């Protein structure tokens, strides 16, 4: 087990956003976390990354407890996080945004940047341009590329399809598969359940801060409740 989340509870002030969430991600998998708006998906990823602290429960990465580790140490442990809304540094060039991804190493970043440019050739053309001037799709690619610069073992992706045209979403999902095939484990948060389940090995469904379902992706894809609630198909 690469990531083990057990009975995690997180609250904002008095309101509990995660009410005992448990799940696992194995090395090499793509696991997707599905759920409607406000289900607690972002909260889950931010807690794994150390931006939020669980009030109860444990999180382990590679057998080591990480639920008290500060956020800036996570990338050193091998956890990369592509946040919701991409969060590109708007007044840094594409190149500098990528360099930020390798900030903790501080060594030569050429080889890593070349790998990112291979995955996203458009970023090579835009190298000198300010991050804030990129299109939404390009920003998403930059956000993923920036996280890859940290050489993560586990990549957390928070709604990479948000606000993008279907064609771009397909490309991004193809690249996520490629990243996974190159050896990075992926935890993918999505509202776009159909595409996420086709990509993933397994899936978990969150509802108001609780895991209500978990199964192999193919089984979830065939499940009537999922089809009705998340794939926009009326009940048969």
């Amino acid at each position, binding site marked *: 087990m690469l990531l083990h989340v057990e009975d995690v509870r997180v609250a904002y002030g008095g309101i509990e956003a995660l009410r005992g969430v448990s799940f696992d991600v194995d090395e090499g998998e793509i696991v997707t976390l599905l759920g409607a708006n406000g289900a607690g998906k972002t909260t889950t990823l931010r807690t794994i990354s150390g*931006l939020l602290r669980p009030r109860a429960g444990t999180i382990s990465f590679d057998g080591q407890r990480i639920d008290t580790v500060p*956020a800036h140490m996570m990338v*050193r442990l091998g956890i990369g996080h592509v*946040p919701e809304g991409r969060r590109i*540094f*708007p*007044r840094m060039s594409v190149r500098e945004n990528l*360099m930020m991804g390798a*900030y903790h190493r*501080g060594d030569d970043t050429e080889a890593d940047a070349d790998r990112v440019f291979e995955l996203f050739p458009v970023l090579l053309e835009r190298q000198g341009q300010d991050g804030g001037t990129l299109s939404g799709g390009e920003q998403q690619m930059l956000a993923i590329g920036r996280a890859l610069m940290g050489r993560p073992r586990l990549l957390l992706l928070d709604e990479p399809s948000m606000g993008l045209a279907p064609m771009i979403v397909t490309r991004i999902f193809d690249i996520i598969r490629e990243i996974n095939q190159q050896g990075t484990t992926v935890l993918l948060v999505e509202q776009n359940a159909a595409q996420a389940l086709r990509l993933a090995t397994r899936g978990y469904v969150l509802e108001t801060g609780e895991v209500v379902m978990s199964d192999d992706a193919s089984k979830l894809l065939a499940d009537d409740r999922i089809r009705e609630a998340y794939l926009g198909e009326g009940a048969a």
Partner: protein
Amino acid sequence: MCFTQSFWALLVSGIENGSIYALVALGYTLVYGVLHLINFAHSEVFMSGAFGGLFVVDAVVGGPPSSGLSSAGLIALGTIAGAFFGAVAAFVLERVAYRPLRRRNAPPLAFLISAIGASFFLYNLAGKEFGTNPISVPQIYDEHPWFHLFGAPVLNTYVIIVVVALTMLVALDRVITRTRLGRGIRAVAQDAETASLLGVDIDRVIVTTFVLGGLLGGAGGFLYGMAINVSFNMGFIPGLKAFTAAVLGGIGNVRGAVVGGFLLGIVESLGVSCVSSSWQNTIAFSVLVVVLMFRPTGILGERLGRAA
């Protein structure tokens, strides 16, 4: 009539003052960039640098300067000592006056009050320890006009101050735009949370930013003290003017602070020729009011500042 007499002399002294405002303004703008707070105690960082430089120079000089080289060495020594003591003051301020508030997520007003409290504490402490009379820095070089600009004498003091300031300004610009540390500072300024996801230790970046501002402000304090004198409350007016310069250039914008510093120095100096020299401060602070009223983002806008 404005500018008719002594235009060049006023311009020269405006540039000299402006270079000090620029050095000090960077301290305000850097800290604002990463914390969105005005470090009103920065004027005491300036004062600390002046005293630090003064004491070190005092300890080293025995008699009058023997050669140009030893003068240059003493100026360099005083500037470095000023930078060092400024940095120490800024470091301590961050630890004592700000970090505890950040830990508790205190409201912005608490930071402002803490800054003003720290400022009062420091300059009263300096007044108590070192007396309230202005102290002259020993004559470490022989002041004389170096050359003439359209008839206006340009003192070597002016040249020294402007050259030292420009060197530091260029160095800082390099650090901010070209180095890993600079990228970390800009990343925290634009989006601190995302910076931390990428491995940036925000606390470390913040304290480093204070130290950088302290280096420049402390060096500026020594240069100012060398040209005029050193006293416990010397930071107040230059501090406010440097703050004005930072706002004029666009608070949070590093190059803006430099432009704002020089512009303010020149405007207040030339403005004096239209009225009288007793108006100099009034002119400078009128600039602040006008900028805040008509272009609160300053000339170059807020650039280090908030992420879009």
